[in-house]
């Protein structure tokens, strides 16, 4: 039975960054990462957009081989197709997640962590001396790993948390069902990301165009199935594409789930931490989770390493991870979640009117703060939204 210090389940951004930071904090520890997929970073279940500042905490995007495109504008599209351009400078980047995740895994490997692909965790039970015994399957058969700390970085599935007795189930109202194509041969501003809202387009979510280059983009949408008219996400996407980009050629295709919830109430227990999507650490307004997963991975890796060095991997000690995360982003997500719930009550006509109001502001003065102020004056319906935000 292999005996390791830290066993990480999932080699996405959360797991790879956790492994790297555990090794940085305590190079003497044995750190193993399990990944079910045959190669890190495939298949891609993501629109690949990240904010500039968050990304730079972990890697320099200038000229990096894992970057597809730099983004300098955001274009919101109201339900009635009117466009609102928001002028900003360094908005963010569209990644090539296959290469980016592989880059993160290579960084962890370079620091001495072992990343095992084609290898999945199948369950776990408490072992002796506070250790966990994790059942591990691969083409070579089944073995059991014994670990001092298990980090659940297993994405939307969030099974490690459940095996450890944490509440990581997702209410249906807080699950975005997503479908996405890579579309070629379409006409759009390649320096902008586009977001369209609308009940008939993506109920409870939005549709997006995230450029990967000139004429090629990730085109997808996410919706809340409880609000749908009976069609699934792929059917809504096919309808939207046929209307907006009838001549586009679809290359890749993917589906996936985005948890638009708040952080699970407890992200730790004896010898276990959960991080990233597995702990519902996605921004519930935007659905973005890549940078959050990396920030959580960094905290989890450092916390686990320090706990093992101190010889105490109890829940009491690991609770420091939860508090650090809540301080960093978790409390913000509670606020964003309240805004999300308030926005759910507004109809398409509201967003059409908001687009008209914002377009009356000269584009160079269209900062998000000013948009919000104007919106409050012209659309008193938004006041309860603001009230709930600042409550």
């Amino acid at each position, binding site marked *: 039975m292999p005996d390791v210090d830290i066993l990480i389940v999932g080699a996405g951004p959360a797991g790879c960054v956790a492994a790297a930071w555990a090794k940085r904090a305590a190079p003497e520890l044995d750190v193993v990462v399990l990944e079910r997929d045959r190669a890190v970073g495939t298949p891609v279940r993501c629109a690949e957009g990240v904010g500039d500042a968050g990304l730079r905490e972990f890697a320099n995007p200038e000229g990096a081989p894992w970057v597809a495109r730099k983004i300098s504008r955001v274009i919101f599209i109201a339900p009635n197709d009117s466009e609102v351009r928001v002028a900003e400078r360094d908005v963010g980047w569209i990644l090539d997640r296959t290469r980016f995740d592989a880059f993160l895994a290579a960084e962890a490997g370079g620091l001495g962590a072992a990343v095992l692909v084609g290898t999945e965790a199948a369950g776990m039970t408490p072992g002796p001396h506070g250790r966990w015994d994790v059942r591990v399957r691969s083409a070579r058969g089944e073995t059991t790993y014994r670990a001092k700390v298990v980090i659940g970085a297993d994405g939307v*599935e969030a099974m490690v948390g459940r095996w450890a007795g944490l509440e*990581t189930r997702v209410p*249906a109202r807080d699950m975005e069902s997503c479908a996405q194509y890579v579309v070629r041969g379409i006409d759009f501003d390649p320096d902008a990301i586009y977001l369209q809202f609308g009940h008939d387009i993506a109920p409870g979510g939005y549709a997006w165009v995230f450029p990967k280059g000139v004429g090629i983009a990730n085109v997808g949408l996410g919706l809340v199935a409880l609000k*749908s008219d009976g069609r699934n996400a*792929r059917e809504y996407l096919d309808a939207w594409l046929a209307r907006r980009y009838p001549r586009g050629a679809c290359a890749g295709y993917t589906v996936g*789930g985005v948890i638009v919830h708040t952080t699970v109430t407890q992200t730790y227990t004896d010898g276990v931490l959960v991080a990233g999507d597995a702990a519902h650490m996605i921004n519930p307004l935007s659905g973005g989770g890549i940078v959050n997963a990396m920030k959580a991975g960094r905290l989890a890796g450092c916390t686990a390493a320090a706990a093992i060095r101190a010889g105490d991997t109890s829940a009491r000690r690991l609770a420091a991870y939860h508090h650090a995360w809540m301080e960093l982003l978790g409390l913000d997500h509670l606020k964003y979640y309240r805004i999300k719930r308030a926005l759910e009550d507004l109809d398409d006509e509201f967003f059409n009117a908001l687009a008209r109001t914002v377009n009356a502001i000269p584009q160079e003065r269209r900062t998000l703060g000013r948009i919000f102020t104007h919106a409050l004056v012209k659309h008193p319906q938004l006041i309860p939204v603001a009230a709930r935000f600042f409550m």
Partner: protein
Amino acid sequence: MRRPRAAEVAVVNLAACDRCGLCLPLCPPEAIHLEFDDLVIDRGACTGCRKCVAPCPVGALAMVDA
């Protein structure tokens, strides 16, 4: 396989399923499992609650008489 305890249970169409994992955290009794390229629903654990069905992005899940 255990005997079903519900009148209706969920089944998956593996030809349509993309193994995205979205349905796993929606299932209250932990009846859905991913095992590499297989999505397995434990008929004995499924309570027939239907929570997994509509959210599947490709409509790969359906209810059948147990």
